[in-house]
């Protein structure tokens, strides 16, 4: 029976599954099962536990107490929402900057000759494989007082920059630096869905570059751009290394507050309540975007 089902399954065309394959094709489900178990036990269950803990009385170490809202009240009363607001602000600003910085780069990579495009892609991915704390430490050594920039300028011109760390803009810079690849790849996937001849045609017919960008390129590339923006927004919402190393504690992000509630604070319910805020915001953003995406089309077409 399963053999039949497999024969009935159409070649990898993506969407538009005929009813024949759908009715009796358990093969797909069995193949998906290990992943579903992993995500159930390693993602869904821990998050549900966090939600449960967020309604427990302060400082309890069991998820089975009587539910209360006091942790959420504490967040506002004890000003923990400030760190949340900082994280939100940092995520929004760095995502906006990333959109601007990554777009020309993605455009250049999609239009480059294949060998060059591969080389550029590898060069941009490679930093992802270096732990972010090493890269941030590199920036600290570069930007600090008597670091490479300050010391170098001082030696060359006698005027240094002083310390450029320990402020908010440098945290934004760190976020933009760390998350650039995450913005770039979805964007490249999106832009490779813009056929070059359509672009040419629009320009030949007298459209200005701006109009071509607004009416043709951007709408066609939109799914990729959207995924990139979303990905960067969500992961930078939970960032803490940038503020810790480059910002040197000038502000505290929500992830740092969550961490200290779980560790020094020994207040799991408070850490959980703060986590729930992040989960809700991240979840809402992802949910809204997911509904509008056709993954088959995006990933399948990018191959051609």
């Amino acid at each position, binding site marked *: 029976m399963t053999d039949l089902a*497999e024969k009935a*399954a*159409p070649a*990898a065309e993506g969407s538009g*599954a005929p009813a024949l*394959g759908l009715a009796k*094709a358990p*093969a*797909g*489900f*069995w*193949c*998906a099962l*290990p*992943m*579903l178990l*992993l*995500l159930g036990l*390693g*993602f869904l269950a*821990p*998050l549900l536990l*966090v939600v449960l*803990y967020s309604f427990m009385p302060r400082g309890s170490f069991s998820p089975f107490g009587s539910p209360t809202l006091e942790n959420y009240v504490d967040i506002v009363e004890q000003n923990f929402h400030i760190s949340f607001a900082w994280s939100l602000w940092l995520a929004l600003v760095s995502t906006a900057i990333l959109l601007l910085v990554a777009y*020309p*780069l993605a455009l*250049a990579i999609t239009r480059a000759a294949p060998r060059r495009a591969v080389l550029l892609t590898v060069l941009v991915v490679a*930093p*992802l*494989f*270096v*732990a*972010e*704390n*090493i890269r*941030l*430490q*590199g*920036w600290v*050594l*570069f930007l600090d007082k008597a670091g490479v920039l300050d*010391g*170098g300028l001082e030696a060359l011109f006698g005027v240094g920059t002083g310390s450029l760390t320990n402020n908010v803009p440098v945290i934004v810079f760190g976020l933009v*630096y760390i998350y650039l690849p995450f913005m770039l790849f979805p964007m490249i996937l999106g832009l490779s869905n813009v056929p070059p001849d359509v672009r040419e045609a629009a320009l030949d017919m007298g459209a200005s570059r701006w109009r071509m960008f607004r009416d043709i390129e951007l709408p066609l590339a939109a799914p990729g751009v959207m995924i990139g923006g979303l*990905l960067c927004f*969500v*992961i930078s*919402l*939970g960032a803490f290394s940038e503020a810790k190393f480059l910002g040197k504690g000038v502000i505290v992000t929500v*992830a740092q507050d*969550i*961490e200290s509630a779980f560790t020094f604070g020994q207040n799991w319910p408070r*850490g959980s309540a703060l986590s729930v805020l992040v989960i809700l915001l991240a979840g809402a953003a*992802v949910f809204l975007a997911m509904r509008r995406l056709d*993954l*088959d089309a995006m*990933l*399948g077409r*990018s*191959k051609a």
Partner: protein
Amino acid sequence: MTDGILRRRLLGLYVALIVAILYVPMLTVGLASISRSRFFMFPIRRTDLKWYEDTFASLQVRDALWTSLSIAACVALISVTMAVFGALAFARYDWKGRKLYQQVLLIPVFFPQAVLGLALQLWFNSLGVQMSWPATVFAQMVWIAPIVTLIISIQAYGYDGSVEEAASDLGASRWQVFRDITFPLLGPGVFSGFLFAVLLSWGNFPLAYFASGADVTIPEWLYGKMIGGYTPMVPAVGFLSVLAGGLALVIGLTVRARLSRAA
């Protein structure tokens, strides 16, 4: 027309600039590792390789290296095995829950890792699971296995499914079809997935930080030193870690290029 050339030049310059900026911290770390003085000052007065000697002599670093490598190997092997099937379910088979499955699979990728790490810590605590390197393998898999699945899926979209049909029409069993047709066709994707998994695990800090307990990976060792007391061993270990990752990437890509040429 000259307008177009100018624009292309500017774009090329921009790309070169960004790529250069991406590597500034790695170069700085390399520089800092050969400075003799305990606190980094630029320009470097006297260079010294003693921090590398200390690194190679350090038992802590050796332990951390071993932990990092064990985790990366386990994460990559298990993730790839699961992801081959996960990718078939993602791209190859039509089944009822496929659209939902595709979206569910992306969610852990789209999630702040520090928050996931803390949630997993809470979860392990409640289950009585000891924080250790095996717990870290599990934690990293939650993030890495979906990424590997996406990479293999791209390969799975690209191949011609009718070959499988032909094989089973000719009497091959399901296992034979998988072993002789499907798996080799997925080969380059599987290899890329494996390479990505090893490298992402090697460079991962947040999940290891919350899940590994007393076992310390290289990024965690570095973190401890950065917080607890900087010595130039930090950039020395950091730079070695960069070199190791870079070497693995170059070897991996070369093998991958051979593989896809042979296919």
